[in-house]
């Protein structure tokens, strides 16, 4: 983070690459989420998966248009905890959404263009709305947070 306040297209691109890495992780993680949920909850995971894939693709295109190399997905990721039940699966989804939320907040902090900040606040909000549903499914209270990503 440019704590001296210096922000430019370079800091913005670095933050976009970081959020792309988080989106790659979310796409991978939702495969595990979907497998761990009860069948009636899987549409929620599918919708989230589609949303993250869309954002990932948008970020890849954005970075390419800027002449930056998009971050590639890792072959696999380490889960933060074993997913052994639907509650675990929902908790993993919360972690995934919180992870991308933190990355989008960093984009807001580092961005220099209005368009990128608009994208960041939109996707940060979408992540938090999904997280509210997953926190409820995981039995967490409160289901909301005052400062997503911060």
């Amino acid at each position, binding site marked *: *983070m440019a*704590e001296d*306040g210096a*922000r430019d297209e370079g800091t913005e691109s670095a933050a976009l690459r*970081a959020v792309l*890495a*988080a*989106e*790659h*992780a*979310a796409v991978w*993680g939702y495969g*595990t989420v979907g497998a761990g949920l009860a069948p009636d909850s899987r549409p929620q995971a599918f919708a989230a998966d589609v949303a993250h894939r869309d954002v990932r693709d948008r970020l890849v295109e954005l970075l390419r248009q800027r002449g930056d190399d998009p971050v590639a997905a*890792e*072959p*696999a*990721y*380490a*889960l*933060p905890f074993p997913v052994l039940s639907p509650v675990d699966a929902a908790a993993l989804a919360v*972690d*995934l959404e*919180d*992870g*991308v*939320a*933190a*990355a*989008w*907040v*960093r984009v*807001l*902090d580092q*961005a*220099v263009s*209005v368009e990128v*900040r*608009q994208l*960041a*606040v*939109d996707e*940060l*909000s*979408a*992540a*938090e*709305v999904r*997280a*509210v*549903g997953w926190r409820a499914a995981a039995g967490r*209270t*409160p*289901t*909301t*947070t*005052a*400062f*997503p*990503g*911060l």
Partner: protein
Amino acid sequence: MPSSPAPAPPGLSRRALLAASAGLALLAVGCTPGSSGGSAASEQADRLAGQVAVQESLVAAYAAAAAADAVLGSEVAGLAAQAGDQLDRLRAAAPSPGPSPVRPSLSAGAPPAGSDVRAWLRGQVTAAADAHAGASTGQTGARAALLGSVAAGLRGHAAALA
């Protein structure tokens, strides 16, 4: 699952996320350094002060909803507390941190008699989220991050009130 764990990326590493977000939170609280210079910074500070007023109205709206519907008020007490926390953080980040009085009946109005109080409150929350989200795109640095985060938090409130 991989047989040999791969390095956790930012999206899955709690430690990395906590470290990064803690630093950002500190910046958000004390976001007065010159991330933008001169008049631009002054204009941004003024706009942030305007968002304090928006949040004051929202806190008042939560109080008004609780006064109109005690059961709903009990249900949303946690949301109201979070809205208050957001207000505190915005005030701390605004250039003139002196808190202005919250007047529910003046700043937010009250739900119309006989109306759906929950729906009214949700509308107030959504309006505040819209305002903060719009303001975040006109800010830079920690101010943009703070406003964007508050806006997202209120989107979550609206979802919880649905």
